[in-house]
């Protein structure tokens, strides 16, 4: 009902390969886009700055990982390391005097080069072996960061990011940062939406399903895997650079450590492999829920006048958060994206499917 299908006919290939086949999807997306655009004016700056902005940047990053893990089916446990390469190269370039537009691209390309170089070696193995090899990349990168003051910025290992400036405009306001993050996230989302309907996207899916079957069909699986790694690393690099430029304002090795890699992977898995809207949901759950639950539990215990030990108070949200992840994956193993998909499918024919029962 809400997703009305009446009058939707695909009479040619162009119409059949449209991004939004159902008008309601397009309208909903446009509506959300407008809300995103208007967010700085309708949302208190705390939510804009501490929740929306990191959410959007991490979503862009998670979409990049989704490309390699969800579409191409390659498990990647060193994603934060790739983000670190982008962040550090972009900041060093910007500190050197390169305009930010190019610094971001340099960051992306550096990530791309290092990510795919590593993939060259890593892709000789498959599955869990690949996961372990990418994990090794994470540790190599951690080691490089903590042992080269020239890269990580002195003995404290913190590298100050210069003021972000794009198109000749210094960006210093919360609103400005938000729009940069929003713009990047929209760009990546559009790219991913289109990926589905290109030859590249179909090749990646073929490689994911069975790489030797893909090879028999004439899809060079090694080439496409490398391409997937290179593209996703580019997205990771720019996202990492933007994360530092608009949110952290300085880069430190802890921001890109191994647990961050695992968090991004969790975002993608909880959200749903190969699901774009799922990445948005997954990031929200993994990134924002711990802080929110923490606030609610702390606020609630204060309001009820309960004397709870601060340590216990700190561990309750962790337990709630862990339980949430388990519950989500129990209800729908394919992730939050599929959960949304189920609701959409239900509403698509509602109430007429009820007549059958």
């Amino acid at each position, binding site marked *: 009902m809400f997703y009305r299908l009446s009058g939707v006919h695909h009479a040619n290939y162009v119409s059949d390969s449209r991004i939004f086949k159902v008008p309601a999807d397009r309208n909903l997306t446009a509506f959300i886009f407008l809300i995103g655009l208007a967010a700085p004016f309708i949302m208190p700056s*705390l939510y804009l700055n501490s929740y929306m902005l990191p959410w959007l940047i991490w979503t862009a990053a998670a979409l990049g990982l989704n490309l390699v893990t969800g579409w191409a089916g390659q498990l990647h446990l060193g994603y934060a390391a790739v983000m670190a390469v982008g962040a550090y190269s972009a900041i060093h370039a910007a500190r050197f005097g390169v305009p930010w537009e190019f610094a971001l691209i340099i960051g992306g390309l550096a990530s791309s080069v290092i990510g795919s170089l590593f993939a060259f070696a890593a892709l000789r193995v498959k599955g869990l072996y690949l996961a372990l090899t990418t994990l090794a990349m994470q540790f190599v990168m951690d080691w490089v960061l903590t042992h080269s003051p020239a890269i990580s910025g002195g*003995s*404290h290992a913190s590298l100050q990011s210069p003021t972000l400036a794009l198109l000749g405009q210094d960006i210093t306001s919360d609103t400005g940062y938000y729009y940069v993050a929003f713009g990047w996230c929209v760009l990546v989302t559009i790219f991913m939406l289109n990926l589905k309907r290109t030859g590249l996207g179909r090749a990646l899916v073929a490689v994911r399903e069975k790489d030797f079957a893909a090879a028999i069909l004439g899809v060079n699986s090694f080439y496409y895997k490398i391409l997937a790694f290179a593209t996703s690393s580019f997205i990771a690099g720019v996202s990492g650079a933007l994360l530092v430029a608009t949110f*952290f304002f300085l880069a430190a090795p802890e921001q890109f450590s191994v647990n961050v890699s695992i968090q991004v992977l969790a975002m993608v898995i909880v959200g749903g492999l190969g699901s774009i809207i799922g990445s*948005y*949901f997954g990031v929200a759950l993994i990134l924002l829920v711990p802080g*929110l639950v923490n606030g*609610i539990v702390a606020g609630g215990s204060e309001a009820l006048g309960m004397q709870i030990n*601060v340590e216990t108070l700190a561990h309750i949200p962790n337990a709630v958060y862990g339980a949430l992840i388990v519950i989500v994956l129990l209800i729908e193993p394919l992730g939050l994206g599929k959960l949304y998909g189920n609701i959409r499918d239900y509403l698509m024919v509602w109430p007429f499917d009820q007549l059958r029962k």
Partner: protein
Amino acid sequence: MKRLTKALAAFTMMGGLVTGTQALAEPFKVGVCYDLSKAYTFATPQVSQAAMDLAKLVNMKGGIGGEPVEVIVRDHGNEPQRGIECYSKLSREGVFVFDTLSTPVSLAILPRAMEDGRILMQSLVGRGDAVDGTVFDWVYPIGPTYWGQAANDVAYIKQLHDGDMSDVKVGFVYFDYPFGQEPIEILETLSEKEGFQLDLYPVPLPGSDQAGVWSKVRRDKPDHLIVWMLGGAHVVASKEMQRNRIPMDKYISVNWLNEVDIANIGNEAAIGLKRGTNVVGGPDVALRQEILAELYDKGEGSGPLGKTEDVFYNTGLAMYSIVFEAARRAAETDGLPITADSYKAALETLEDYDANGLMAPITVTAEDHGGGGKTRIEMWDGETWVPQTDWIAEYSDVVWDVVKESSSKYQQ
């Protein structure tokens, strides 16, 4: 997505309202954004308990300028993102004094605090060059930097050898990441200056396997060991030292070694072990006794009594004595309400303040936000900590050279 955003906003607003209604009078608030669930849990429970106890004591005595004080303790799980969230949320609620007790989070908050003009207290964590008040206006790492602490350790060794270090061998055992690597530069400078031999022994994280390190130490036979490790790694080190027959009295630890570690090492085995510190160790300090009498004896303590016997409880008392003393002075000179500016001015009037014999006397100035960086060496005698030196801050010219060199890089 829309639904989710709305739900998020509604949830957080609910949280905000609930905490907002608590504020009847306008108390002096401290934002204690701590890691109570991940990496720093070896110290944060004791320190936050001390903060809450001290706030209760201050309130029992009539608060500051007649208004109550409040410490708001929140967990950030050592994640920079959540630390920033905690900071942003509390600073919009009018908090202007923050403490994180976590290096990654302190680093993440620092640019914002500098921009927004909020006081960032970062005793014992964060970037050490923040003691340079001419660069870091709003950051107060009161207490020793790791550089200063290492220099004082060297000064103590020099004392032991009657001022001649030419044939002394000092080993530096450290966690091989920025926390442990920080003192290397200063130790190398001092080794050149004083002529002692310095050997470096990096310990890979998380420090649970140190066998290779200590057999190398046995072969090299250093006269003293300066150790920059945390928590359980001390226990592993002590086991390896016993295995390699290295006497415990060579061991000079960084301040992060407490009674829990001593108990795990074994009380007898730990005799002779030394540590640098900026607070008096042991349960006999006057302020703790007062808190016991006023709160714990009446069952109003903020946590278990056992935690107050820990040296990190004393560390917490020291940190928050400074926080409240500065607030008291700000209220006295500039009146209520206390603002970030009046608070900052009050901090810089602290002179030889030692919280009634609890810690090394500190003198905060506009240039030196570290308060002088005095520490002393204490030795575990099987029952308590016995001071081996006075409160000292040696080689301050060398330390400040390193500070200035590092802080000058902050502004591009």
